[in-house]
């Protein structure tokens, strides 16, 4: 178990290194090819050649790409000093550099955005897992009934709808049409829990609906397959109640493929629910990344990409550990 964990953590670090090399290569090498100067982006329009030269030395743009990359990695692990001789800035341990546009540390910017994305992802995940699995199980148990058909038609519609469309239809119907909810901007949970909940419900439901549809479809298909297995027949034959057979025996193996999916989906969302955040104008990691991309703010793009990759690989690691809990046949070696 411990050996497995260490090996996997080693894998996580390796994955992140590769992602960072590729991202760094694309975002720092491509500007070089197309001929745009990162120092110029950092300095803005009103500048002169001496200021640019100073920025190049201070930010390390004068060094070769490989050395810049090593400095970048060192900054994340151990912090980094930006030094020109005249003025020096110390950037403490998880140092992802400074935003070209706002000159704030990228790490601070990300810390600022994480609560928004986290609220969105966690709340939606709770809803979609419960709703998706429950409807999927009911649909499988009531196979070929009106309930099953209705649920599956709804689920098929759900997987075919783009969130940037439902994100407009939902407020149009629920807010302006029926007046059940109201649209409000994001408020931090620590500041005002009521306002936070109020601002989150609509995005949660919209986002969760799309995922719940996929989960319901997969749950139903897996459940039907599992119910055909020999051990379910055995469990019934030894006189267990249907309730126990479904809950203890069938549901457990139904969960395995869902857990895999959940790891990828949830990890992906934590790195920025780009479309949902854009549709509801939330200032999360996703909108920050999109804004950074259109502004050419390389350090912010790098930081968020790496953070997003970290979430995905960590989520996968946790999922693989969970396997051993859900499925007793799995041994982690």
């Amino acid at each position, binding site marked *: 178990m411990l050996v497995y964990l260490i090996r996997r953590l080693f894998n996580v670090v390796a994955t992140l290194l590769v992602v960072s090399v590729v991202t760094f290569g694309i975002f720092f090498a491509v500007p070089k090819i197309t001929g745009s100067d990162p120092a110029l982006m950092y300095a803005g329009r009103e500048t002169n050649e001496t200021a640019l030269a100073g920025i190049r030395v201070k930010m390390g743009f004068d060094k070769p790409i490989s050395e810049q990359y090593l400095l970048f990695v060192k900054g994340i692990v151990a912090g980094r000093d930006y030094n020109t001789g005249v003025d020096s800035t110390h950037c403490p341990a998880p140092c992802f550099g400074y935003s070209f546009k706002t000159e704030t540390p990228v790490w601070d910017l990300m810390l600022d955005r994480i609560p928004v994305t986290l609220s969105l992802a966690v709340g939606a995940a709770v809803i979609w897992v419960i709703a998706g699995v429950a409807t999927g199980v009911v649909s499988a148990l009531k196979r070929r009934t009106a309930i099953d058909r209705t649920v599956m038609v709804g689920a098929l519609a759900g997987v075919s709808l783009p969130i*940037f*469309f439902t994100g407009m239809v939902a407020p*149009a119907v629920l807010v302006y049409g029926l007046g059940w909810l109201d649209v409000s901007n994001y408020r931090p949970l620590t500041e005002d829990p009521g306002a936070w909940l109020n601002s989150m419900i609509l995005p949660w439901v919209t986002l969760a609906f799309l995922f719940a549809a996929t989960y319901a479809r997969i749950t139903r298909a897996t459940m039907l397959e599992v119910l055909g297995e020999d051990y379910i027949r055995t469990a019934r034959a030894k006189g267990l109640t249907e309730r126990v057979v479904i809950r203890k025996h069938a549901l457990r193996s139904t969960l395995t493929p869902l857990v895999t999916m959940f790891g990828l989906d949830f990890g992906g969302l934590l*790195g920025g629910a*780009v479309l949902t955040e854009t549709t509801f104008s939330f200032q999360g990691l996703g909108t920050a990344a999109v804004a950074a*991309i259109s502004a050419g703010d390389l350090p912010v*793009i790098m930081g968020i*990409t790496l953070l997003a990759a970290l979430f995905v690989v960590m989520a996968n690691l946790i999922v693989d550990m969970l396997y051993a809990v859900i499925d007793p046949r799995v041994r982690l070696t």
Partner: protein
Amino acid sequence: MTAPLHDTSAETPAPVVTADVPAKAIQGRSPGRIAWMRLKRDKVALTGGIVVILLILVAVFAPQIVSLLGHPPNEFHEDLIDPDLGTPLGSLGGISSDFLLGVEPTNGRDVFSRIVYGARISLTVAFLAAFVSVVIGSLLGALAGFLGGWVDGLISRVMDLLLAFPQLLFTIALVSVVPDSLWGFEGTGVRMGVLVLVIGFFGWPYIGRVVRGQTISLREREYVEAARSLGAGRGYILIKELLPNLVAPILVYATMIIPTNILTEAALSFLGAGVKPPTASWGKMLSDAVPIYQDDPMYMVVPGLTIFITVLAFNLFGDGLRDALDPKGS
């Protein structure tokens, strides 16, 4: 798939239901024919398939359709816009016999024409990207499963790595750094090419994983062993023995990846990383509708429903195809 596609032996002697062929009691049916017969019975999947074919025809004959039923997609009709509000005159977003799906807010372009031309972008990108994913995915997946060892290790690692990438962000970033003219192509062509390559590239691990798993389970089968004992080389076994049996899962995943690609293309256009205006695209129409949908809901509903119907049709057809090709199905 337990048998090669060309195997016409009576492997599944299904009882003959039709009464008009009593003479030949048992008829040989290839798995391909069985699948086609199942698909023909599945009305929902067939409807999806028909809608898909219609959409393809609309995309192919866009100029002819628009010249018959619409107005040029970039022609302004400011006389149809309320000068004070910027919304179309008349009810339902300006729908009339002349403008079948209404007009765009502010400058009054024909929504019908833009939807029809948008189908070209959407379907071209989705199909070509699916093609890229299928080619890379089946090739590398089959190689990984067939050769095993370090090749398998390397390809599997690459697939895991790609799945850990924040794909949407990456795609936006790549699209935005690509210059306007490249390799002799200009404007829309370049953007579409980049979209195809990037969406296709990030899509291949999904097919690769399935093909790899299928290849691993097939390569130990007796018929492969038989071919090997007859002196068949690796290349022959891979292409002549394994590939025909991989066609079914590849086909199913290809039809499933197309609707995903349509949604991705729409999402990228929505975020401003799709084809450049004034070229019409469904995602861009939706993002244009964001600030105005409370006053002119039709301009949001039309492209939204178009995307929905398109993706739904592909999903229905894909589901039906999967069931039809499933050897366990009845």
